[in-house]
């Protein structure tokens, strides 16, 4: 195992989890909820929070039964190398591609607002360079950066107070989850907005305080849930239901409504702030991929692995070139990641159980 000088405080873990979870899906989440859960779909966030809390509970079991040992050690000690490496390969592919496609999606939406004809891959390259600089600094510095980014982003929740005047309770209607709904498939689409907490599995060996580690992950997940709940609740009351189902990115529309006496069309500026949460999402998924790759290739320097992972995914990101394709990729990677989020801790728990039996 790599020698770690500095460890992550619970506060940093909380913020890191929040920042990984908050990604590009938040822009379309209110619409996804309206389309798939119908009237008052925002309440489905509570259900998702319960599911993610249960998933974190699984991670807490891994943490407790594994006694704070890295999951890689557990896997490698119990599984044949071939099997372990196959699992690693799947994890590396999903994580690195997820980080990459999140960046591409952010860039494509950004280009709807500004620089529409510049090649998206140039912006993607810029994001990747920043990501590279962060990843190579190690997890402790990433978490410090995440904490400062957090303050740049979280104040935006206060902007929701702008909508108190135009919020209409009548838009909420008394119906719960009625209309044309798709709980299962649509639910999975919405749930991808919550993903990111599973990275906590990799953070176990870096935690400073093992007792407070899981609590910190739970709090991070709760902050995400509360933010989502507030944003979606405001969207459901501000837009009429029919309108909400037709808006591609309701959050962008919501932001564009804010007008200050000296400035309007703030969404262009505010969308820029979201780069910071996106960046941490991208960085952490790539970091996870690189950490895993390091187990397969322990002798190669981490910096070269970073260049390799970012470079390869950059080339692959060239393939989906229009918004529809990028969204499709993101959707499927989201499904795959949901499987990893549940599958990985379950697998490790089974291994731990068997080992205990022996």
């Amino acid at each position: 195992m790599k020698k770690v000088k500095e460890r992550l405080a619970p506060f940093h873990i909380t913020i890191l989890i929040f920042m990984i979870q908050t990604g590009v899906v938040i822009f379309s989440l209110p619409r996804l909820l309206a389309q798939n859960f119908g009237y008052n779909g925002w309440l489905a966030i509570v259900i998702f929070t319960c599911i993610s809390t249960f998933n974190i509970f699984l991670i807490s079991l891994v943490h407790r039964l594994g006694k704070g040992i890295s999951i890689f050690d557990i896997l490698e000690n119990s599984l044949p190398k071939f099997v372990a490496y196959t699992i690693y390969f799947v994890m590396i592919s999903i994580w690195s591609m997820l980080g990459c496609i999140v960046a591409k999606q952010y860039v494509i939406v950004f280009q709807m607002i500004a620089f529409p004809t510049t090649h998206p891959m140039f912006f993607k390259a810029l994001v990747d360079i920043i990501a590279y600089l962060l990843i190579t600094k190690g997890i402790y510095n990433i978490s410090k950066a995440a904490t400062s980014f957090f303050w740049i982003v979280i104040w935006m929740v206060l902007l929701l107070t702008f909508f108190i005047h135009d919020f209409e309770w009548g838009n909420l209607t008394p119906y719960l989850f009625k209309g044309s709904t798709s709980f299962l498939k649509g639910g999975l689409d919405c749930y991808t907005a919550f993903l990111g907490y599973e990275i906590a599995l990799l953070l176990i060996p870096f935690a400073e305080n093992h007792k407070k580690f899981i609590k910190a992950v739970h709090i991070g997940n709760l902050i995400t849930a509360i933010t989502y709940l507030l944003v979606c609740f405001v969207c459901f009351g501000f837009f009429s239901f029919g309108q909400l189902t037709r808006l591609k990115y309701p959050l962008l529309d919501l932001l564009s409504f804010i007008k200050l006496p000296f400035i309007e069309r703030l969404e262009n500026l505010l969308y820029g702030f979201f780069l910071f949460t996106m960046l941490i999402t991208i960085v952490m998924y790539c970091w996870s991929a690189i950490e895993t790759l390091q187990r397969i290739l322990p002798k190669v320097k981490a910096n070269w692995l970073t260049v390799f992972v970012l470079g390869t995914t950059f080339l692959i990101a060239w393939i989906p070139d229009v918004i529809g394709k990028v969204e499709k990729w993101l959707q499927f990677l989201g499904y795959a990641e949901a499987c990893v989020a549940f599958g990985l801790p379950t697998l490790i728990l089974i291994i731990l159980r068997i080992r205990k039996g022996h």
Partner: protein
Amino acid sequence: MHKPILFCSILIVMFGIVGCGDQRILEKLGFTHTTSYDLLPNENNGTEDKLMISVSIPKADPDGPTKRETLTAVSTTSKTAKIMLSRKTELSLVSGQLRNTLFGLTLAQKGLWEHIDTLVRDPAISQRVKVTVVNGNAHDLLVKDYLPHPRTGKYIDRMLEKEGKAQTVPHITLFEFTRDLFDDGIDPVAPMIRSVNEDVVIDGIALFNEDRYITKINSDKLLIFSILRGNFKEGELSVDLKSEGEHVMLSSLVSKRKIKVQSSGHNQFSIDINISLKGSILEYIGNLHLSDEMDRKKLENSISEYIQIEMKDMVTKMQKSKVDSLGLGIRIRNSLSYSEWTNLVWKNIYPNIEVRCNVQTKIKDYGKFEK
């Protein structure tokens, strides 16, 4: 150690320079301020309707001969027209500063959605762009220069803004129009204007069924409509109590609306619209003494009665035209279960529901003069 930093700096500068590709230079841009849409009369029985689209672009140059530029094109869609318009000017036309859209009456009668759809789809266009209906031809109104009011586009925009604050016209933007259009319990409305000699005047409020203009509220009843449509602060209402030859002017009005829905059996609904009004009287012509409490009570009652009758007339007119501009459907919907609401064809029931209007007026003060 310095090598990667140098390498990255070069890369960043390199990519930064590429960003210069999508340049926007202020002096070379024509910021469309107002756009007008008109439907041209169908010539030669052609199948496709032609649109006449005009834009008004304020000029930044203070010493220039004109304060604004207007361009007109005839085309089938608004974006095609934009290309045609751009052929007529040295400026690149951009719509980020668009403030108002004017729709001619004939186009409004045919339906506005396909034009509004283009506007809400374009990320450059703000949701706060106003939607206005012109009683007549929108192009003529926009291109005309009104001598006392320079820059027609800005003049109309500011007038609507100001009147919106005074509650005479609702503040209708792309956001509000789309919100009401896609809500199954309310129909959109929009302010209506008209050109009269050297001025543009508020002509009333256009009422829509879905996206089609149906009828309008006349300009002398604007505040009654505002009272019916929702809560507001700060309005002025002039009341002619004709039978008694009295005239009252209520200022600083604060109006609150409460709606109660009662269901009496199968698809039978009755609605109570309860209004409480509070205002100051700054003008009164009549025989009553405002300083006398009994007289004030009398006056309050007659004002309430007057508004009640006006409101009832207005609601009946809307019911006859099948336009639910007050959002009564939202209240009915929210009082029913989901299956009851989906089985109900609201537009068919709406004309037959019983609507009762109750008004309570309170005179807060009557100025600084006793008798």
